């Protein structure tokens, strides 16, 4: 079976006339501590949009998912950028995977991912980015 390829950057097509867009982070298959700052920046600028940046981690069961402003078309060209830190709280090492997922009307529109990665230090940083387009 071919190995699945992962990209830390993804251009994600959205429907400008569709419903609410949500950007979220997922932490499949890891028991290492992961924290993040998620920012959404304006098109062609480094200015964050209202309500961002947001912070979170993988120690609770709440969804790490954040809605973007409506109408959806205002989000075209905006970038979602996550700075993620993975921390080894036991010293046993392990693997992690962090995905940044874009949803619209409950449907996945695209994702950026670290892929399954072996923890090589006590602290590792990752960055994921999605750019929303028509």
């Amino acid at each position: 079976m071919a190995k699945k390829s992962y990209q830390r950057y993804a251009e994600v097509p959205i429907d400008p006339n569709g419903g609410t867009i949500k950007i979220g982070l997922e932490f499949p298959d890891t028991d290492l501590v992961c924290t993040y700052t998620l920012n959404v920046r304006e098109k062609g600028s480094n200015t964050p949009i209202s309500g961002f940046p947001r912070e979170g981690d993988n120690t609770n069961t709440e969804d790490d998912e954040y809605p973007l402003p409506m109408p959806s078309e205002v989000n075209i060209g905006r970038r979602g950028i996550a700075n993620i830190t993975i921390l080894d709280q036991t010293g046993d090492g392990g693997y992690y995977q962090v995905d940044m997922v874009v949803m619209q009307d409950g449907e996945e529109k695209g994702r950026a991912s670290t892929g399954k990665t072996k923890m090589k230090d006590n602290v590792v940083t990752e960055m994921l980015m999605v750019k929303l387009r028509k």
Partner: protein
Amino acid sequence: MSSLLQSHKRTLRIFALTILGTLQIFSQSTKLNLRDDAEKARADFAIPDAPAFKVLDTIPETILRPSTAREVGIVISNLLTSTSTLPKGFALEVTPYLLFAGRSLSGYLSNPFLYRLKVSAGMLDNQDGSKDFGWGVRLTIVNKSDLRTDRTLLDSILHVGHEFDHLGDIADGILNDFDLFGTNPAEYNRRKQPIVDSLKDEQRKAMLLEPDTSQTAAEYFDQRVVGLRERAKERNWNKELVEMALAGKSTSSDSLAKNLMATTYTVWGVVALPLDSQTTQLVGGINGSFEKNQDQVIVGSDFSLGSRFYAGNNSYKGFAEIDWQLVRDQQPFYTLKLGGELNIMNGIWVDCTIGYQKRSGDEAQLTSGVNLRFSTPEVK
């Protein structure tokens, strides 16, 4: 002060390694006078990770550790494919909850008992053509020394993580070249790193600390995590622990699965309690097993009970132990021991004991032992 402590630790480690060889020779010579069954007269305080392999009295070279329910299905299917004949041998260890719920930190924090439950199974060929089949279950009911569930450590680690994320986010704003990340993420990160390093020093200044340009931000945060973890280990080494394991062994007189017959059952249990905040611990262990013959008549059994008192810290500790063991059709054994445990280097422990052992009606004997124990080394 810190370098003095480090030097003290190094001296102790070198001293431990030097005396290890001497003690090993001494321990071998005294052991020559001991009977095999007397050697067993001690409680087992270590609950086996995979009780099935313990009951089969073997450590398999290859242990299958499927991590998804699908992989378990494939393993079982492979074992059963060739007619009804049992395979030559296998060893399997699984965490059932992990298979179905997936690995998740929030899941582990909500249900640590289910995530720690392990099931093992194994098969071994005997010289007479028969096969031994072992199964085992390991339960960790309470483990307050588990770093993963230590709320104080977790909160501190989350704080470190958020600080690092925040610096990364500010650095993105300063670099302001997001198209570069889309085309060449490695180059983007190369340009971003010195900005993050310099922001780390700005942060230290804001906290009224001296900036330290000799360390990168990654090294600085790494060092903080290691420090937090070491302090948590010192704080937790003597915390409450309740563990138990059950195992059974069945024998098949030929290579067919349908002739399996249960022969041995074993149970282990350990309870550990702190007697004060960080320097002492009392551990109680219980271990029992019985063996049946082909006519389902009990032909052998043994039972042991022990208690060990520890004083020290996570790296060096002394102990005093009392054990009692009852073997079917034999007089009970009693053992008194004194000893110490020393963490000589990452993942390696030396365990030295000297003891007094007596069986009712026999003369008392002096015993000694030096063991090296290995655990998974930590990432430093």
